[in-house]
């Protein structure tokens, strides 16, 4: 009658440290799909336009997406932990306005960048406070602050523009930070790199290391996978969430400074609609909107794919609306592919 006889533990039972690597699993990784997409984009554009594979053209192209890409790094972490910040573009505007006034007050380049980042920090802390202290959903909070921050900019500036900036500040935004260097060998050279793209690359490496190699990164994955169990495991869930909103605000402020320096002027509609471009970069990069899944490498690849697609199409004088149709279709297709493959794949019998 009694079934409770203990089962003796299996002693000679070998558990591997890691699953055996199988080619199929590697090929199905999101990053691999993105690399294929990136190569395809480059090949097609090279065939279609002789101007595409020109280092100066490519370097110029990075101007158009680097500022957004910087914010996308923070957005990736937020989406990874099941949050989102839709107020980033409005923070860009508010920071840019602050920089405009600071420039008029005689600040130098360092002071102007600090102003932008500082305003972003305050905005991010405000978002983070609303989300963590009052347990409000971040999508609602940041739709609210999106209106609020943009509205403040519009009320203060009206239809005015800020156009007076010190030359050293403008130089940071408008010229190549690293100049083209020939080495004497025709194919070996240091390409010209704009400051914003360089900052993006450095930050991408930093974010990648933090997310994939440190304890904090692991904790972010845990929060995104199961916030309750993460809290029960002693992870300071709310502190980390708050911090991510602050980081998102600071990077938005930094992007606002870079953008202002590049354009040399700002109006209240600066960066309108960026938030969705940025979310697109993150989602295409393979960060799951349900949380817990994603990589910085994926986001970097997605940024390059989107940037080069846009650049290639503009070289061929394809209007912006068509670009937007293509990007929309691309996003849906790339997101659907793994789901379709999952359904088609036959599971091996264990």
């Amino acid at each position, binding site marked *: 009658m009694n079934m409770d006889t*203990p089962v003796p533990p299996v002693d000679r039972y070998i558990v*591997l440290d890691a699953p055996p690597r199988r080619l199929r699993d590697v090929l199905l990784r999101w990053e691999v799909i993105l690399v294929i997409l990136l190569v395809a984009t480059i090949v097609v554009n090279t065939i279609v336009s002789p101007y595409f594979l020109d280092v100066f053209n490519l370097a110029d192209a990075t101007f158009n997406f680097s500022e957004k890409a910087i914010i996308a790094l923070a957005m990736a972490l937020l989406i990874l932990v099941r949050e989102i910040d839709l107020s980033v573009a409005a923070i860009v505007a508010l920071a840019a306005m602050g920089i405009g006034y600071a420039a008029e007050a005689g600040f130098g380049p360092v002071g102007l960048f600090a102003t932008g980042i500082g305003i972003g920090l305050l905005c991010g802390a405000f978002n983070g406070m609303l989300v963590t202290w009052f347990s409000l959903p971040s999508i609602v909070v940041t739709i609210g602050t999106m209106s609020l921050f943009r509205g403040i900019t519009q009320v203060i500036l009206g239809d005015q523009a800020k156009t007076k900036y010190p030359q050293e500040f403008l130089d940071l935004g408008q010229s190549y930070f690293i100049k083209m260097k020939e080495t004497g060998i025709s194919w070996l050279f240091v390409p010209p790199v704009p400051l914003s793209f360089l900052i993006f690359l450095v930050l991408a490496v930093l974010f990648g290391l933090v997310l994939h190699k*440190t304890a904090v990164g692991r904790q972010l994955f*845990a929060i995104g*996978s199961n916030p309750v169990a993460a809290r029960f495991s*002693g992870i300071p869930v709310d502190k980390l969430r708050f911090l991510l909103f602050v980081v998102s605000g600071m990077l938005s402020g930094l992007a606002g400074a870079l953008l202002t320096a590049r354009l040399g002027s700002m109006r209240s509609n600066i960066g309108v609609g960026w938030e969705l471009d940025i979310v697109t970069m993150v989602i295409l990069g393979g960060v799951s909107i349900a949380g817990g899944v994603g990589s910085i490498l994926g986001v970097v690849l997605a940024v390059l794919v989107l940037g080069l697609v846009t650049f290639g199409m503009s070289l061929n004088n394809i209007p912006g609306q068509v670009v937007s149709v293509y990007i929309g279709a691309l996003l849906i297709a790339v997101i659907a592919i793994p789901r379709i493959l999952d359904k088609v794949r036959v599971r091996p019998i264990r």
Partner: protein
Amino acid sequence: MSQPILTLSGLSKSFPGVRALHDVSLSLRPGSVTAILGENGAGKSTIVKVLTGIYRPSDGEIRVRGELKSFSSPRDAWAAGIAAIHQETVMFDELSVAENIFMGHMPTGPARFVDWSEMHARAAALLKRIDAAIPPEFKLKRLSVAQKHLVEIARALSHEAQVVIMDEPTAALSANEIDDLFRIVAQLKAEGRAVLFISHKFDEIFRIADDFVCLRDGEKVGEGAIASVTEPQLVRMMVGRPVDQVFPKRDVAIGDVVLSVAGLSNATEYADVSFDLRKGEILGLYGLVGAGRTEAMQGLFGITPKTRGTVTLEGRRLSIGAPSDAITAGISYVPEDRQEQGAIVSLGIRENVTLANLSKYIRGLFLSRTSEQAETRRLGKRLAVKAANWEQKLAELSGGNQQKVVIAKWLATRPKVIVLDEPTKGIDVGSKAAVHDFIGELASEGLAVVLITSELPEVMGLADRVLVMKEGRVVDAFKRGQWSAEAIVGAATGAAKEAA
């Protein structure tokens, strides 16, 4: 005596590794209340789930008014006239009372649109029948638990249910609300319906039931008229088996006091919980579901901050504001809800095991996979976790193996005190025995263990001492060798003490 409304004969239900019900027969007479008694895990809920079409029985038959029935979905059970009122109400908070009552069978007009006025009128009539002053258009979330129960009863009546199952309906009700509920039960009786009443509280059973059926380990161990038994007899029937032999208790030398808790309280859920815990000791925390055991231990661990009380670990007064404080001090808490609070099922075994003290695996700036793997291998082997590899996602493991990984996570923090909250809930028999054996092993290595469990054999088999909690307070304490199953259950349910 009239023909029974509902007859179960030879009913059995097995899950892989668990026999939840075995050869249970019972019949319900019209106009009577039948109480089902049994410890947690005795099979009460399984009967409810079989009767409401959630589980299909492995064997046996269900007859309603003599007619053979087979339920493949809850809908079939409704159609056969069986309705259940659940422990925690399963309804739709954002919908109106009327919509909740008629969910699945809303009155429709032409073109299949919902006939709202008809629905509200019928809902109002049903609610009036049970004297419930609840407007049908109110959203459900505005109601109290007691009012929600009334809505569920109205829903049962809307189906013309002949059999109404009440699964611990009074767990969250006040004394007055219980009186109201019992008035309605009496009314259902008078209308010739049969009521199946599940409760842990003896006073309620003696007050309301006509008949009883007692279950133990999925088998029927007694039945009859409630007037023919006494409370001690029922308790003995419930706990009947020789519990001491199930899990051999290790002989452990008990050392000095490690943890000392005094006057732990919060605003609503527990008050004045105090105890000392010694090295190598297993302290059982027994009580009914909702007695405040989990809440008190989560207060100790810093999940829901306590409002009052002191915690002293090895002579040092702790101030615990968050779980990380408790972990650093050397207190671990293995939560009851494994899926939601314990395991992160979309992460791998290694990532789960190392999660609660990641700083231990940092070499330089970064996490060292080698040292993470070493710890995972050590604990995984020790707990005999069965997996293909240590990177396997927890979602692919069985419940028992998931639980082992969660325990491994807490052992990785090298705790001095470990609180295990229902560690064997919902896991198969084999893993259960392994977990029991392991708890004994932990104690023998000098760890101090608090074991929250609702299973009497478990607490009596493993614990050195048992504290019994009831309504948020410690009401009794027993030492090994000076307890009896009857006395422990008696203290937890508030039954008369002569039982021992």
